[in-house]
């Protein structure tokens, strides 16, 4: 299966088309702050694009960086929901 067939990625890209880069950065930053996931995101961006912050990425790589960010956000959300479920 191609990456672009991934339903999660399709959903991410669909919303990306109606937002500016700045709006997308803000949306991602908000999620990361809420999830307290800055260090995981930093690690993923460092590995993939050799940058530490989304704001540092060149425009041509922004879509890839944003996709990575959203994948991390979804995984952290999954992990959080497991953590919360196990507390009940």
């Amino acid at each position: 299966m191609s990456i672009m067939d991934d339903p999660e990625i399709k959903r991410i890209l669909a919303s990306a088309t109606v937002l500016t880069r700045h709006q997308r950065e803000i949306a991602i930053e908000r999620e990361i702050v809420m999830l307290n996931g800055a260090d995981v995101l930093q690690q993923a961006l460092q590995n993939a694009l050799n940058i530490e912050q989304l704001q540092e990425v060149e425009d041509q790589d922004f879509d890839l960086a944003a996709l990575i960010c959203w994948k991390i956000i979804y995984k952290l959300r999954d992990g959080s929901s497991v953590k919360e479920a196990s507390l009940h």
Partner: protein
Amino acid sequence: MNMIHSFSIDHIARGLAHPLIAEFWQQWQRDAQSQSGLSSYSASLRARMTLSASTIADDMAPELLAVGPQSFIAACFGSAWAREATLHARTPDANLEQISARGYLKAISGEPSLDIVKATITGENGRRMGVHYERLILPIRTSGQHLVIGCMAAPLAPICWLPEPGEQDHLECSSTGNRPREYVQAPLSNVSRRERYVHGPGALQIPC
């Protein structure tokens, strides 16, 4: 045949583990006390480790969150794959995902998993390779107290690219009598399949 042999974590304290594995373990122990999360890991360690999610499904290893550019898995599947590994979420080899799952499950439950893996795996282009490595899988708490799974793999032998069916006739073989066929590992990028098989005295040689 694929083989995973698990060892007690005491092997590290007894100096029997690969230095990279020992370094990862020592950092993890320090972090357990300081609880400073991923930022306390050196850049060198972070470039060599992978991070995965802490949930497992369908008996597969958890999805990848980050793959260090100098990690063993990046060497196996290539830098282009490693760069987008967060999007791929899994390695191209479903069998590897399955045989790795047990170690990850152990780490998710809070226990370190130290193993030696010897396996034949398949790359993105369908090319098979023999791999032999030691790996340490550890549960890591991020600064935000998320549980992620860190894995450090240290090669015990160079990656051995296996010939495709029908290709053997075209390969250069060792001329050293009874010694097995020997190949040299070379990166996949920028070299043709033919050029990947080079051997000779003084070159890094891999018994296949």
